[in-house]
């Protein structure tokens, strides 16, 4: 691939500006490893996704290095555990930029961290891929070097709303979120969009995830006449209590919403397996079984490669696949452009059309850094997990 004149200029400009700030990067020898920073919330609350991503990351790096690396250069993954704490994430990001001098950054994995970190990455012109769903995180003008590898919240929300209104044909919807930052904003956005589509939001509430009893909110939702409950929370404890309460009330309203509703932990928290029926969580075509119980062929290929090396039982296939894709995308960008400069990597990403990753098919451009295709977001039956993948929800089959 030839570099355009413009990209050459950009690359030169960024080198000059780095040099003028007294931070000139030493010229890398051609055998030095390529450093990719990985901001992962590996411990602490809501660490499950990062643990899954990490398996894909490690697997991808090992696969690339085993095949001789990128033009003879090995990939080195530099991981920092942020614990989901934005303060730690900011420190780690600056360390990666100024001290460790990485060539690209993958992560962070939680929106709160990502919101704090993205402006810093933009200032340093650091190529960045992340899986965080908050819409405002992607802005090609403000954050020209940040790209999203997963769907945005709007895309999730679209999938959930379309399923609720069009396939389940609910007219009156209750929207619940937890009291975390994510839960509050997601529930509000979701409710607004449902109203816009002409359905009625009969009940909207944020529930403290530690609240032992879900009866009050469920009762109010029921009394308001809800025909479906859209739920935005990553708290498995709260979700399980909601499902149990629904069963105790003898109410057969469907739950539609956040992927956490299909998390394996819920299986152990519900009182009986039946409580988890009629729960539909966001899923992905690439990681869903069809009526015959088969994954798409491309995904099956990854699963076969992972077999024996990466455990999929206690995580989700899409996390592993997205982690793999992120590292692979960076590797491809450096390999194709032949450079580790920021402008080269972002230049490659900006020209990406229908790149066939395992998790999705990515397309980016100068003005669109949301690369995931909306039609690849689907709903899956929450209780149908098998090796980290789910069966499509009824209506798609």
């Amino acid at each position: 691939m030839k570099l355009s004149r413009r990209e050459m200029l950009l690359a030169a400009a960024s080198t000059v500006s780095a040099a003028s700030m007294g931070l000139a990067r030493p010229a890398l020898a051609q055998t030095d490893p390529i450093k990719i920073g990985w901001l992962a919330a590996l411990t602490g609350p809501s660490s499950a996704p990062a643990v899954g991503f990490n398996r894909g990351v490690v697997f991808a790096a090992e696969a690339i290095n085993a095949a001789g690396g990128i033009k003879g250069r090995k990939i080195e993954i530099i991981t920092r555990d942020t614990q989901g704490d934005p303060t730690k994430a900011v420190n780690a990001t600056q360390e990666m930029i100024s001290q460790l001098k990485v060539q690209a950054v993958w992560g962070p994995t939680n929106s709160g961290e990502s919101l704090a970190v993205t402006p810093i990455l933009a200032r340093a012109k650091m190529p960045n891929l992340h899986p965080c769903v908050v819409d405002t995180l992607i802005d090609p003008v403000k954050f020209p070097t940040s790209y999203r590898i997963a769907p945005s919240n709007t895309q999730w929300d679209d999938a959930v709303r379309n399923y609720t209104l069009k396939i389940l044909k609910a007219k009156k919807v209750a929207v619940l979120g937890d009291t975390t930052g994510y839960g509050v904003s997601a529930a509000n956005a979701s409710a607004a969009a449902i109203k816009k589509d002409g359905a009625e939001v009969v009940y909207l509430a944020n529930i403290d995830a530690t609240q032992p009893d879900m009866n009050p909110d469920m009762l109010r939702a029921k009394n308001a006449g809800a025909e479906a409950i859209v739920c935005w929370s990553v708290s498995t404890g709260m979700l399980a209590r909601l499902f149990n309460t629904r069963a105790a009330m003898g109410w057969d309203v469907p739950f539609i919403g956040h992927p956490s509703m299909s998390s394996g932990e819920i299986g152990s928290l519900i009182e009986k397996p039946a409580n988890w029926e009629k729960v539909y969580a966001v899923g992905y075509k690439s990681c869903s079984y069809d009526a015959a119980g088969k994954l798409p062929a491309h995904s099956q290929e990854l699963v076969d490669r992972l077999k024996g090396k990466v455990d999929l039982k206690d995580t989700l296939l899409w996390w592993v696949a997205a982690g793999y894709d992120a590292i692979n995308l960076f590797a491809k960008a450096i390999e194709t452009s032949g450079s580790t400069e920021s402008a080269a990597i972002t230049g490659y990403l900006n020209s990406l059309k229908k790149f066939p990753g395992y998790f999705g098919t990515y397309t980016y451009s100068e003005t669109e850094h949301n690369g995931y295709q909306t039609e690849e977001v689907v709903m899956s039956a929450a209780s149908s997990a098998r090796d980290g993948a789910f069966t499509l929800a009824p209506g798609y089959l």
Partner: protein
Amino acid sequence: MLATIIASGLATGAVYALVGITYNTMYATSRVMSFTAGQVGMLGGVLGSLYMIVWGLPLLLALPLVLASCALIGVITEYVAVRPVLKSLEQHLYVLSTLALSLMFQQVTAIEWGTEPRPFPKLFGLGTGISDEKFWIPVIACILTIIGLEYLYRYTLLGRAFVAVAEDNYAAQALGLPERNLRIASYALAGAIGGLAGFSGGELMLAFFANGAVLNFYGFVPVALGGLGNNKGAVIGGLALGLFQQAANFMVGGIFASVAVFALFIIVLLFVPQGFFGSATARRV
């Protein structure tokens, strides 16, 4: 609707009350308020889940084991965080030492047990809806604890010795009561009560490491409401708090319910600083 508020309010209130009694029992013999009171509550739930689900022990074996383990946690509190700072009680170092120990319990649980809530088993499998066992087990545990404590304090030598130490430490020592052993025993008792709080509330709150911090605060509110060292006050305060919290949950929603509880707490502290059933502050000079 009202029935639900009352059922869940009394249930959570009973758990808070038991944690309040834990605070009081520790306070009685040592004049120390310990931050580990909420953590033994959390451990009651976590250990219950560990013994019954992970190890597969039956209830009759698991419950005594949980109580014994939590009693041990109480004794550890006494040894590590209370005894060394008793001689400088007026410097309030116990606030720091027990906070440190409490954070240690919480962190070890977070790392070893996980940061996601894990299930707590059904103990009897009785009842559905608002008569579900998860609502009445804590209440029964609370009632049994009160009866047990009344019996202990009134009719046993050990209990009377507790009361004597609680009322006048120096006089009790002068009478030849083994003050130090009594204090250890009361911390063991407090640990067991806290463990029972967590165990009986396990189905309600699940086995979750962050419950400790929640119980620390919500278990302390009944003590502030009812008056320090007053178990009856703690029970009434705890049940009132549970009902208030659930009603607020129901009426204004999750976020503002905790704001309401906090506001109530501050108002009571400012206007009835010694609590509704507490005695006036002790002589200072």
